[in-house]
Every structure is written in C-alpha cells, then in structure tokens.
C-alpha cells in the first residue's frame, strides 16, 4: 500500500474536512448505525450553519439545532422511535420556524441521493403524487417522454460531506456493512467528501477475501477513522443493541428542561468527557458488554 491510499486519521482530523455552511448527510437510519462519534465530534468542533440531511432522523436533530451547529434539517421523519415520540425541542424549533425542517417522503429523499450517486440531476418517481408534500419541496411534476404518464421529478442531492459508520473498512476506505445497508451506499457515492468511521480497520486482504461484500469503494472515501462503538448509544447491526435506557434518560431530561436539557446532555456527554473515548468510559464496560450480548441474541440464526 502506498501512502496515497492510507486514509486513516483521528476523529478530530476528519472533522476538519467539514466546513461551516456545509450540507451533511449522516448514514445509518434513525438509531441504527448512526455515525454518532463523528456527529459529536462536529459539535465539539463547533461547526456552524450546517444543513443536516438524514432520511429518518433521531435526536441528533435537536442536538444540532440546540447547539447552534445546524440551521436546517432535511428528512422524511424525525423522532426517537415509537416509544419516545417526536423530540420535544426539535418540535419547538420547527413550530417557531417550519422552514428549518424540509420534509420529503422516505423514497423521494432516497431517490435524491440515488440521483446524486448516479451523476444525474433528477430521478422520476410515483411517490408524492397528489400529496401536499409536493408543494413544499423543490420536486416538480413531469410527464414520461414515452408513456406521457404523470410522475414526480425529484432533484439530485449532492451533499458536501457524507458521514458513514460501518462494521469494517481497510485503510484505503473499502468499506463493508453487515445487515441492512440503509442509504449509506447512495450517500457515499453522491457526496463530494466521504468520512468513514469503522468498528474496526482491517487489512486489505480481509476485504479482498470477501470482495462481493464491499459496499463502498475506497476511491470515494477521504477519511477512515477506527471508532469501536462508534454508533453508541445507537445500535450497530450484529455488534451492539441501542441503549434504550440512555434514550429514556435523555427523553426525560428534555421533557423536563427543554433546550436546557439538551444543553445539559451535551455538557455531560460531549464537552465533559472531551472525546468519544471519554464518553465510552463514562458509559462503562459493563454496559457496553451487555449491549453486545443483547445484539448476539438477535443476530444468531
């Protein structure tokens, strides 16, 4: 391997690839395989004026709004999960200024990134036809040039940076994903810059042995960071289950204290520990091991 293809760096170094004003897309889905460590690193680096795009968004939505990092969210749904409902502070922000949350249908959102990843400025779909969503997005109606049927054209989304968390990658960025791939492949292909965090960095030979499992080719990747438990307290398929107790505590805090609850959460989990490793220490080994045990119960056939 040449130096040119070794893209390993630290979270802090990778965060320098994100500039104020960028449009970011974060992989995974809701509380699954979220690039949580990288998201927290951007909060720590105090990036500003970001647009955060994610198909189903969890409570990173309100961390980014309340910290002042993001000024706009693009998604098809924002909520922590069935049990906890819609994040309260997010709601407050959006009810004050509905324009900061641009809502798409789930597939329409995905097709915007698929268009970007195909190098096309748009893609057609049957979603959003007849709905009020259509009027509040840049999507437009169009006719098929062959059948004349009515369709919706969604414009490509080409994010400045994609943040992707995977189970394994080699130093050049060839990345493999276990379980559902969500929209990560489209995100990585569409974005101008791609930051991959991985549960483990493996040798190129390990990737070669299972090349038909590689989801993201190294040539689209700009940074590779090894971050075990990099999605925690969200889940990572096959590795650890989401920490619902952590969500419960967060939801309770925010229910009680609103924006100040979010600030308190950030102080305790981002600024206080000073690093993601520090955050994991705070969580403690016992808890991390328990979450990995629970994951094994679910993926064992």
């Amino acid at each position: 391997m040449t130096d040119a293809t070794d893209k390993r760096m630290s979270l802090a170094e990778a965060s320098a690839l994100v500039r104020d004003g960028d449009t970011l897309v974060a992989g995974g889905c809701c509380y699954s395989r979220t690039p949580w460590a990288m998201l927290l690193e951007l909060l720590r680096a105090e990036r500003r004026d970001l647009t955060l795009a994610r198909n189903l968004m969890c409570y990173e939505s309100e961390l980014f709004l309340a910290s002042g990092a993001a000024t706009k969210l693009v998604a098809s749904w924002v909520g922590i999960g069935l049990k906890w409902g819609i994040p309260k502070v997010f709601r407050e922000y959006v009810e004050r200024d509905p324009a900061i949350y641009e809502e798409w249908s789930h597939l329409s959102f995905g097709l915007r990134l698929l268009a970007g990843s195909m190098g096309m400025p748009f893609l057609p779909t049957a979603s959003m036809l007849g709905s009020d969503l259509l009027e509040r997005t840049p999507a437009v109606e169009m006719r098929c040039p062959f059948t004349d049927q009515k369709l919706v054209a969604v414009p490509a989304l080409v994010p400045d940076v994609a943040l992707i968390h995977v189970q394994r990658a080699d130093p050049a960025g060839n990345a493999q994903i276990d379980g559902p791939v969500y929209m990560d492949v489209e995100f990585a292909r569409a974005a101008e810059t791609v930051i991959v965090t991985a549960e483990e960095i493996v040798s190129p030979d390990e990737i070669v042995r299972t090349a038909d499992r590689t989801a993201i080719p190294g040539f689209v990747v700009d940074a590779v960071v090894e971050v075990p438990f990099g999605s925690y307290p969200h889940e990572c398929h096959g590795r650890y289950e989401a920490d619902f107790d952590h969500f419960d505590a967060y939801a309770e805090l925010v229910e009680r204290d609103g924006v100040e609850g979010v600030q308190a959460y950030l102080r305790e989990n981002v600024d206080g520990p000073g690093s993601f490793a520090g955050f994991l220490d705070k969580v403690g080994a016992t808890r991390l091991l328990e979450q990995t045990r629970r994951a094994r119960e679910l993926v064992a056939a």
Partner: protein
Amino acid sequence: MSDATPVELMTIAGSRLLRDGRVVFAGVGAPLEASVLAKRLHAPGLTIVLEGGSIGPRMLPGRLPVSTNEMRAAHHASMLTSINDLFLYGQRGHYDYGFIGAGQLDQYGNVNTSFIGDPDRPKVRLPGSGGANDIVSSCREVMIMTRHEPRRFVERVDFITSPGYLTGPEARRSAGLVRNRPVAVVTDLALLGFDEETGRLRLDALQPGVTQQQVQANTGFELLVSDAIDELAPPTQQELQELRRLRDGDPTDVPETRKVTSAP
C-alpha cells in the same frame, strides 16, 4: 374474549385481512403486530417487509422493534437490503398490501402525519411522512389502522402527507395515482371500506358489541354505511394469547413457522 383492549381488537381485526402467500409492507407498531400475528396463525407464507430494508423477518417474542430499521426488525429475515431497494420493489408493484398507521385521516382516506393547523404556522409539528407516503403511492392494496377517535377522523385533513382518494376516484386518477388504491381502515370500533363511486369511507363491519351510532359519534364527518353491516367475530383465545406472547412473551420460545423451515 371480553378482556381484549381496543388496540388488541384493532390489531387482531387487521391481522385477519392478510391472506397467505402475499407480501405486506408494514409500518412499525400495530400494523407490524397484525402482520406478525397473521403469519403466526393463518398466513405462514405471508412475507413481511419493513422500511429499514428487512424482507421476511420473524419477530422474537418480547423483542418487537421500536423502529423499522433496527436489529429486532431484521431478526431472522431472508434478505436485508437497502432502503431505496426496499421501496422500489413496492414501486415496481411487488407488494400486495401496504399497512400503515395514521395520525389524522379524512373521509377520503387522506392521511396527515405532518402538521396540525396551518403548515406555515403549525399548532403541532408531527414527525413527517417517513415511508407512509411511498407505501400508499405504491402498494397494491392500502390498509390503514388507527384508534377510532373524532380528533383522528376529520372531515378534511390539515395537510395531505399520504394521499387516499384526495377528493374522489377521479381526483386520485388525475393526480397520477393509477397503480393502486386504498381498500380498508381498521379501527378499534369498526372495519371501514371505500365507496367505489365517491372514494368516501364506508362502514362495513362493527367490532363486537359496538353500535353504528358509536362509530358515527367517534367520526368527525358523516360516514357512508354499507347495505349490510357485518359484526366482526370476537378475538379467539388463540389470537389474543399469541398477540400477548408476541409483545411480552418468552423470546426463547421458537414459533411453529420457524421450526418447519429447517429442512428444504
């Protein structure tokens, strides 16, 4: 089984609508529980698909997913794929049923999960479409499951997140929604269908012991009424036990449908 809760009544009625050998795209919560129940009881060949990319999962009792994309939603699936592909199978026409919940819906089956009040100055911002809009725009037969309350059943939704018949079958057609149609709304009080001519909701059957008046009183618009209103059979003991085991039950308990798959 008089001790069934309203949500259980609704879930069990929903499960009975799903036929064996079909494919159902289910939303998380009651639609998913109804689908899993159907697969365990009368439709072992039903394929469940979930938004996060999970095809053919079997739920571990006591470990139902809280979101459609997490590990518990992927348990024992035959295929785990991308979200776009999962939806595009639907847009291609491969899904027989689309089964969703609804925050607010109107007499034409239009669903709102976006805004209560004026979208530009909303009283309440709801979570958004998620996959609901895509499901109702593509799955062949669309079914909606929701508690039957006046605040949910409104004359006209504040915002159409997921279109039903819009203002009628012609409006739906001319909007370009020509591949599929809404067919049923299942609630804790009744089973509703859609009138073919007007696209309006029609009372087809009552949950056990419920009266037509009760249903109308809990509906914020005038319901059409079928010529012959049925009464739904009460939940059987098996249905209720299985549903409860699913939610609270012993996760190490291997379901029947899983055992028989071990040899080709």
